[in-house]
């Protein structure tokens, strides 16, 4: 898997005038044929990364490579990447067929060749028979497919998708998630997908870059990021979390809520203050005498697949629990969790330090961390 990266950012910064930088000294690599997701809240700089790759804006400083070729000053129309825009940006004066053919016509391809490619692209996105429709006659989901067909017909090596699902309703969105993932695997090209929806990111990606305030907070597979968030922001942004202040007594032993618990984390200094993450679904409800922690139930919400319980321990810490079991409001319950459910986060740890620490676990044969 040590192929040359298809896209490489080296210390890239993007800044307008004297405003704080939108993208602050970002470096990363993307491999060929993978599904990447740039995940972050709005205004975090994820779309800026996309526009830097497509060439619609230029970096203030830093280097951007495409297959080891510096492309900082290559204009957008000369790059082998294509974009699916958030509002689809379909040309309203052209019909479906001509929208898809746009890029090919620009390249002055022969008509019969264009015809072959356009029909193939439309077949790829299940839009056969819609060739002569006007754009305004298409539904949101169909426009989305036209936009994808228009991008992939040019056979880009990288397809950029700028929150393409945000305008669709929930059901269609879930459907498109499957379709996009499948499409990426069939085409075998690199997808860079921008979203603020963590579920989308977890469901589709090979790798997720979590971005906040112009910096990449964490890179990793969906599992890595969900199970081992690097800091409070990532833990909160990806899924729901119980985050509590604690103290690392020594390796494999953490103290929080006035009690000591066995855990699987290591590489901390003795008695180092830390933050502890336990996912709501890792907490099991039992009787108070069997629980590792005892809490009092405050509210119960029925969420369909599970109940969401909000409860407080005696120190006033809030605990969110996802459980299929129901509990009475006001009842004392015990919480049980495995040592693996505890994830310890160090304050202010950089990604490199975090990765290095996780890797050191492997030598002990504990948890895998890629």
């Amino acid at each position: 898997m040590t192929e040359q990266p298809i896209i490489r950012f080296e210390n890239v910064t993007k800044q307008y005038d004297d405003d704080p930088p939108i993208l602050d000294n970002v470096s990363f690599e993307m491999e060929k044929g993978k599904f990447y997701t740039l995940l972050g809240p709005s205004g975090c700089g994820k779309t800026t990364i996309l526009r830097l790759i497509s060439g619609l804006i230029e970096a203030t400083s830093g280097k951007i490579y495409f297959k080891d070729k510096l492309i900082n000053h290559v204009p957008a129309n000369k790059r082998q990447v294509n974009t699916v825009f958030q509002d689809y940006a379909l040309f309203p004066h052209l019909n479906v067929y001509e929208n898809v053919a746009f890029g090919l016509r620009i390249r002055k391809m022969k008509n019969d060749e264009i015809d072959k490619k356009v029909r193939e692209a439309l077949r790829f996105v299940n839009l056969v028979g819609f060739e002569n429709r006007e754009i305004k006659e298409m539904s949101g989901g169909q426009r989305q497919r036209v936009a994808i067909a228009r991008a992939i017909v040019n056979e880009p090596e990288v397809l950029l998708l700028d929150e393409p699902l945000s305008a669709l309703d929930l059901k269609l969105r879930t459907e498109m998630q499957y379709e996009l993932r499948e499409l990426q695997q069939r085409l075998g090209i690199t997808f860079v997908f921008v979203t603020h929806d963590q579920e989308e990111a977890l469901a589709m990606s090979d790798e997720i870059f979590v971005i906040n305030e112009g910096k990449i907070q964490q890179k990793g597979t969906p599992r890595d990021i969900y199970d081992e968030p690097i800091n409070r922001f990532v833990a909160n942004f990806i899924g729901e979390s119980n985050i509590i202040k604690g103290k690392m007594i020594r390796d494999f032993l953490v103290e929080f809520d006035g009690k000591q618990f066995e855990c699987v984390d290591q590489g901390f200094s003795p008695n180092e203050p830390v933050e502890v993450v336990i996912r709501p679904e890792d907490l099991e409800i039992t009787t108070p005498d069997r629980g590792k922690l005892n809490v009092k139930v405050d509210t119960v919400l029925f969420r369909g697949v599970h109940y969401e319980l909000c409860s407080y321990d005696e120190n006033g810490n809030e605990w969110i629990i996802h459980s299929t079991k129901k509990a009475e409001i006001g009842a004392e319950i015990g919480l049980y969790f495995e040592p693996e459910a505890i994830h310890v986060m160090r304050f202010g740890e950089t990604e490199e330090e975090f990765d290095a620490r996780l890797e050191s676990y492997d030598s002990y044969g504990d948890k895998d961390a890629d």
Partner: protein
Amino acid sequence: MKKKSLSTIYLTIVFLILYAPIFYLMYYSFNSGGKMYEFESFSLEWYKDLFQNTRLLIIVLNTIIIALLSSAISTILGTIGAVGIWHLKKRQTKNVLLSLNNILIVSPDVIIGASFLIMFTIVGIKLGFSSVLLSHIAFSVPIVVIMVLPKLQEMSSTLIDAAKDLGASNFNVLTKVILPYITPGIFAGFFMALTYSLDDFAVTFFVTGNGFSTLSVEIYSMARQGVSLTINALSTILFLFTILLVIGYYFISKRNGRIIGLGARK
């Protein structure tokens, strides 16, 4: 129910008042009596007179040539101008240019006509066809700009991003995306310029010279010389022609999906 019939009556009265003089004029163009009262019998003699009057026919031709030429040229210039203003990054420069443009539209024709007359005299351009054409182009350009600009502004900027992303050069973006998108605005601008030029009197009156005249100026001088029902006949034909223009405009804008209001003459 009562409210509805009241508003219908009101509307009917307003339109009657607006159109009555025109229909009155048209009605007497068929009067064999030669007067604007006492309708004697139906005749087409004034129309015959009109079509035998070669001088008048040449003037009609002049008017049409001036209108078509000036609106075509001002459509090109105005479209370039609108794209230029739209392309400007600095908001302030944009507003200044737009205001300069709008001032030309709202300023009185008399002032524009007089200033053109002064300018042509100083520069030494002979008054006649070219001076009328130049001044018609001049007052039509701002109109075209104002008709084209909204189309540009409603265009999403991602359309241009998308075109570039698909490999389009700046020239391609202009010809394959921007121009097709604003075509309805360009057509509307052309038609507006055409109507403005056809019925312009004040500006033309100033800059027209010996031996060259347009219809509105000619009708004015004919009306001053005394009443001839040839004017009525001519006016009737002009009115029908205008209706044709409006219908043409309607179908073009209908094809483009929406009707852009024909602005009223100032």
